[in-house]
């Protein structure tokens, strides 16, 4: 059963068409809520993409990935609120986030050396919880449980501008991740996921590659947090919480672990369904506990379609034997 670094996505033509439609969206509508929805899906997708890099490609199960996302969101928020709202300050915030992401990525990556899978999952869970508590307690800085709202630089006060920021960011991110995975480093990561012992016996310093992967995934998550912060203008402890990591995990599973289009498809399914279900809840109270459906769906998918939607698509399309 041979596997490539990633399953090929839908034909480039289809992708370009999709990108084109999304790019042109503001010409057809100026509905704030549409922008919000698309932005949410996009940022969610890129965050899930960064998570996929860790889990799907390198095989590291971290439950604390949200710490990168949330911390940079908070850094942006705090700077905007307490220091100033000029573009320069935003730029500084981005730099600080990136530095923090690299440091945190190194730390978290180091943990993979000392801890085996289960322990690693639990410690990363605990570390993320720690940060949540920290955010809760530092009321003056972070607004505690109420969250932090702030203004953004004038340039980004236009919804359309922000929309394009998010979209272009996602496209660039996707492109960079693809290049990364195609590179020799990326290929090694996949081989580590497949069979760590073998990779190690082939002479690769597994730890070094895990470190690289942790830092790369962390950076990507961090930058996504920045974009999120600019779009949202409000940040809460939920940005750091386990829920956010779990959301990325779900999206990754639903869309397809170890695939590139996976996170995007998963994010779209997840958010659109969530939105639809909660609107249903307003009409029929029975839908109020709709997360049950997600949990259920998620279990069903794990049991029946381990590769998520993307692999199911391939199995249907190419009529390959199970593999």
């Amino acid at each position: 059963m041979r596997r490539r670094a990633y399953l090929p996505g839908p034909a480039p033509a289809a992708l370009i068409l999709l990108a084109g439609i999304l790019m042109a969206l503001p010409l057809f509508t100026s509905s704030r809520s549409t922008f919000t929805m698309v932005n949410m899906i996009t940022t969610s997708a890129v965050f899930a993409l960064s998570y996929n890099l860790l889990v799907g490609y390198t095989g590291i199960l971290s439950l604390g990935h949200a710490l990168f996302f949330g911390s940079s969101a908070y850094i942006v928020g705090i700077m905007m609120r307490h220091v100033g709202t000029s573009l320069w300050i935003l730029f500084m915030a981005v730099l600080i986030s990136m530095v923090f992401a690299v440091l945190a990525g190194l730390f978290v990556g180091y943990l993979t050396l000392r801890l085996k899978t289960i322990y690693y999952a639990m410690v990363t869970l605990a570390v993320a919880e720690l940060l949540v508590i920290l955010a809760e307690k530092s009321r003056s800085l972070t607004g505690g449980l109420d969250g932090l709202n702030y203004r953004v630089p004038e340039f980004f006060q236009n919804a359309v501008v922000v929309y394009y920021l998010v979209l272009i960011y996602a496209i660039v991110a996707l492109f960079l991740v693809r290049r990364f995975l195609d590179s020799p480093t990326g290929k090694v990561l996949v081989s580590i996921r497949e069979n760590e012992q073998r990779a190690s016996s082939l002479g690769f310093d597994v730890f070094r590659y895990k470190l690289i992967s942790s830092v790369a995934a962390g950076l990507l998550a961090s930058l996504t947090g920045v974009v999120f912060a600019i779009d949202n203008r409000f940040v809460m402890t939920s940005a750091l919480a386990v829920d956010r990591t779990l959301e990325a995990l779900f999206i990754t599973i639903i869309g397809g672990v170890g695939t590139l289009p996976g996170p995007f498809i998963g994010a779209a399914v997840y958010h659109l369904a969530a939105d639809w279900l909660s609107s249903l809840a307003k009409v029929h109270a029975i839908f109020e506990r709709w997360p049950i459906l997600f949990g259920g769906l998620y279990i069903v998918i794990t049991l029946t379609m381990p590769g998520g939607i993307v692999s199911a698509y391939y199995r249907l399309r190419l009529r390959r034997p199970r593999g």
Partner: protein
Amino acid sequence: MDVVIILTINGLATGLLLFMMAAGLSVIFGLMGIMNFAHGAFFMLGSYASTWTYLKTGNFALAMLAGTAVGTFIGFLTERSILRPVYGKPLAQILITLGAFIVLNEMVKAVWGPNVIPSPVPPLLEGEFRVGGVLVSRYRIFIIFFGVSTAATVQWLLNRTRLGMIVRAGVENAEMIQILGVNIRRVFAAVFLLGTALASLGGTMIGPTLGQIGPFVSTQYLLLGFIVVVIGGLGSLIGSLVAGVLVGLMNNYVVWLYPPAAMPLNIILMSLILLVKPTGLFGKEGAH
């Protein structure tokens, strides 16, 4: 000095409940290699079912029975339906138990609502004892007695029964035990059931110590359970006991001194132990 005694008693009580939560988790992992994220949900189910039964009938013994029964039954269903297909696939196992956790949480919220419900102490166990000039909570003493007897029973099960022997052997080498003719799936099912029963039983007693219960119980105690299991060592029953008591005591002391530091301190303790001895205090080297 009085305060110290009270804190110690309370800490022991909490610690024993944590032990009950963690023991199942630990052995399930040690034997089956499954990190059962849903475990916190069973603990919570025990607390909800028992509190509800008590509020309806006023009979605490019945409530405890009901709580344990409900938790165990749901555990049985969970193992049968979704866990069995994924034995031997570690990533899928983690994902499935996570999914189960979410579903069970939502189910509880669907049935009892998302808000907290009060959980009173039964009149028989209310009040205080005088112990060496200090007033200690009767309910806490009850928990200690119950917890210690449970721990002793589990120890007995593990060391003096054939099932226990198989479990101990299986934790060390699950493959060999199959070669020797043991149907490991049946053993898994039994262990999962027992672990779940233990967790639900612990859950039935947590309500009155907190005064109220809510959906937060599953996440909070799952996290604490993990911490205890990690500190004590995966697969070790003694580890769960020692670590449970340790965490319980520490928590109580810290909450008295400076509440916000409680959870962070747990986490720091866990991290320290992991860095020094990655398999936990009593864990086996190289296991899983």
